[in-house]
């Protein structure tokens, strides 16, 4: 199942300079792990050492913040869109 993952430019630098990626998996966690393995230098920016989401990177599955649902356990389906939003602080 192809899930589309959109990275912010700051993370795209660590993923072959590509903003949009496709990955397979049954859950959001699978998709994240697939990307982490594809781009080892991106991996520590996607999730912590235990494979859990960070409190300063928000994952949207379509238009919903997954933390208020099932988190990385959320099931994903063909055509779903995942958007990563990291905390940024510049002013």
């Amino acid at each position, binding site marked *: 199942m192809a899930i589309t993952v959109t990275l912010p*430019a700051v993370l795209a*630098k660590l993923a072959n300079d590509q903003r949009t990626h496709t990955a397979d998996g049954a859950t959001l966690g699978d998709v994240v792990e697939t990307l982490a393995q594809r781009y080892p230098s991106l991996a520590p920016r996607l999730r912590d050492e235990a494979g859990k989401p960070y409190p300063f990177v928000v994952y949207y599955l379509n238009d919903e913040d997954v933390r208020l649902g099932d988190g990385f356990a959320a099931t994903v389906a063909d055509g779903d869109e995942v958007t990563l939003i990291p905390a940024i602080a*510049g*002013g």
Partner: protein
Amino acid sequence: MTTISSDAATLPPLGRDELLRYSRHLLLDQVGVEGQRRLKAARVLLVGAGGLGSPTALYLAAAGVGTIGIVDFDVVDASNLQRQILHGTADVGRAKTASARDTLHDINPNVHVQTFETQLTPENALEILRDFDIVIDGSDSFATRFLTSDASVLLGKPNVYGSIFRFEGQASVFNVDGGPCYRCLFREPPPPGLVPNCAEAGVLGVLPGLLGTIQATEALKLILGIGEPLIGRLLLVDALEMRFQTVTVRRDPSCPSCGDAVHGGGTIHSLADRAQDYHAAACDVPDAVAAGAITEITPAELAARISRGDDFELIDVREPHEWEIAHLEGARLVPLGTIPNALADLDRSRDVVLYCKGGVRSLRAAEALQQIGFTRLTSVAGGILRWSAEVDPTVPRY
């Protein structure tokens, strides 16, 4: 929708010059004379008079917001002028608050500008924010953002949020009408080093203009009680692809700041409760330095080691375009992103001295090298900027 309510009868009147000045507002049904009087009565606090605070302040002053507060401890640096349009070349070296006040008074002498030349701290935040109707977060560190947010929640003030990084920005309106707060979106600040947050990362000069004017728009809408503010929505701006996207942000009942006790939220009752969040700037010193495993030397000490002919590997961990601007003689360019792999073949017992622009990336590089077994690691405090200031002024600053 909720707004900054004020009884119409108590609103200040407009003088003849103000009727003329604001005529294009008065022609709008959604503003009119009463709305303009609401703007005149309004008190808006800007946290930061930098990239975001500049356009925000300019438009709020021009629009006739009666009182504009500005918190900023910094002085104007030449490198600010590329985007901080409140300040001009003649202001370099002046306090940003003083420069901002002069500029705003020039645009609109009717505006009362209240300046706070200080860093926002847990000790002064509530006192400074208390007297304002709306808080605009244009700060440049996670520490100040979490502090601004928590203080806004404690005082029940709307927090008009904007943030920028390189070519991308975020904006939202927090803490209004039962909507989410900043902590509902980002629960905790990132640890040092994980999320780039330094001046070194760069920013397209016009980007804070885009985001700051959005913050000013949202503040005016809140004051006037018109339109649909960005409550419960996060606006994402990508200036490179010129794409605007909004995603839903929900209030999190377990949010430590604005959540409900019944859901384990609302545990921040005072700014002392999460003091650690207000000091954890992403540019802070990594743990290994604090623990003494990595040493720091001043540029003068490095110059002395070079002139003594000490044997060490000098590594510049900046990016190639920075190397082209200036670099130290005898150095080797190994950008941070390629470390530690690019140095994996180097003798681990060798003395390695690392430098970057300001002394933060070199510490991160040292940490990465320490993890693969290097033991004699030194970082140049203050980087090439301090080298320029203290050792060799012919090295250009950037």
